[in-house]
């Protein structure tokens, strides 16, 4: 294993220290792996806090999205491991006031349980908390029921909408409604060209053949729906978008935003080529692509490959998408 790290056991803390060293908009709690937006007003004057988090290894998620107009706090677990309830609770306490907190959770058991319990404990302390679970991965649509779909890269569109809504001073109820509606309007799916290597393990989780790719895998390297031979960017993009279409989530005259996400070691050249294919496919089927971004937004350590996320939008949602944010990892333009 060749990785730019100091010690497998300190990667998460080292990484978070790096993130906040570079970001004027975020600070790191001394005793928990929790990154908080800097310069928050005192508790009583705070808007609704928007929190997210989960296992590490998905950088720039989630700490990179902390900043005005997006996340108020991000809670980081060990690599691919949910943060403890304590850490989540510390995050809620440090970022939320009487206006309450919205907690955005990707649909994994550990995350749901730890964020869920923390929310309950926070409520017992008098902090209003709402939870939104994101389950945007359509890959396993024929394999598992909808409520057991995984949460993947589209999650950060939910962060953006919720963060923008909170920044406007809306109530917790309203912010939660907007986040839930974003999560419902969201579909994602990934394709990997190889596995990823956990720092503490030192070798890849699985090995794909010279020409083999895995379709529909999860962001921790979980099994996808099938393996196949590498195909052109146009073909792979069509495969993903057709799956979303078949799930009933994409049709002529839809208005969408598109996220082309690199899984960790995909070069920008390839992401731009995929983006071109995806935009062309969508426009070809009569869908209006209102905004589109390509980059590494939610990774799976050093996995090569990409995911596409498509979210339906109306003018109101677009305004939240376009609202300014100080989060370092949110892309420009679109």
């Amino acid at each position, binding site marked *: 294993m060749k990785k730019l790290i100091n010690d497998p056991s300190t990667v998460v803390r080292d990484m978070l220290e790096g993130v906040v060293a570079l970001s004027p908009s975020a600070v790191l709690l001394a005793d928990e792996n929790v990154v908080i937006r800097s310069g928050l007003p005192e508790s009583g004057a705070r808007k609704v806090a928007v929190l997210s988090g989960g296992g590490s290894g998905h950088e720039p998620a989630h700490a990179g999205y902390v900043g005005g107009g997006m996340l108020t706090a991000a809670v980081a677990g*060990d690599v691919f491991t949910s*943060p*403890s309830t304590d850490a989540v609770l510390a995050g809620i306490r440090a970022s939320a006031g009487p206006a309450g907190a919205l907690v955005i959770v990707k649909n994994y058991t550990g995350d749901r349980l*730890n964020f*869920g319990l923390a929310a309950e404990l926070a409520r017992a302390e008098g902090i209003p908390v709402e939870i939104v679970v994101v389950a945007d991965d359509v890959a*396993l649509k024929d394999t598992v029921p909808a409520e057991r779909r995984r949460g993947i890269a589209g999650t950060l569109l939910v962060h953006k909408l919720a963060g923008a809504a909170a920044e406007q001073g809306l109530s917790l109820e309203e912010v939660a409604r907007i986040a839930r509606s974003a999560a419902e309007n969201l579909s994602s799916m990934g394709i990997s060209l190889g596995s990823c290597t956990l720092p503490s393990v030192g070798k890849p989780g699985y090995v794909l053949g010279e020409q083999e790719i895995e379709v529909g895998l999860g962001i921790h390297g979980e099994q996808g729906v099938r393996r196949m031979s590498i195909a052109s960017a146009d073909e792979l993009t069509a495969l993903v978008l057709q799956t979303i279409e078949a799930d009933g989530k994409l049709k002529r005259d839809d208005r969408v935003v598109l996220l082309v996400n690199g899984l960790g070691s995909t070069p920008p050249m390839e992401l731009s080529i995929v983006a071109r294919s995806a935009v062309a496919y969508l426009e070809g089927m009569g869908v209006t692509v209102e905004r589109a971004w390509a980059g590494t937004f939610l990774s799976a350590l050093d996995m090569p490959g990409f995911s596409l996320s498509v979210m339906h939008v109306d003018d109101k949602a677009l305004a939240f998408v376009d609202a300014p944010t100080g989060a370092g990892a949110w892309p420009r333009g679109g």
Partner: protein
Amino acid sequence: MSETAARTLARMFERMSEVIEAEKDHLSELDGAVGDGDHGITMSIGFKAVTSALAGLDLDEASLSDVMSTAASGFLDAVGASTGPLYATGFRRAARVLTGRDRLDLAACRDMLTAIAEGIRERGKAQRGDKTMLDVWLPAAEAATAAVAHNLSKQDFWKAVETAAENGAAATATMIATKGRAARLRERSLGHPDPGAASAALLIKTIASLQF
């Protein structure tokens, strides 16, 4: 009297931690077949955290409920595996049901087992047959309830509870996982016992051996 009961309960957690330590690798192995292979580690971390939290408690002054809620908070220091919030919630519910009680009689034990099972069910939203630790805690709690209703002796009470737990753990091998990581494997989980159920049976066996 209160002193003794609180100490007894604290000793129960110490013994649990020892048993988990001894079976750590085996539990991780079971999790390797259906999950991510860390169940032994997460349980070990969790129960170590519990015993060290309890070490900070003045057991001469503490109530049964204090011990249970300290154990619950301790478990929350565990790394963020599924088991952390599940057991923490179970122990919190147990602390609630033990409030104001100072004796670990069979009725208290029944209520404690039931509270743990209910806490896990509530937190994890699993049902019986979902191939989880619940398939051990639920039948164990039901056996305890039946044993008290039939006025069984202490020995028979614990025998019934332990047997229910062991049967429940064994049965998970014939189930298809629908909760937790193993759920992604579905059919592939058939034939393998659930690691969380296995550790739950170990915990219950430990309680039974103490014959409160």
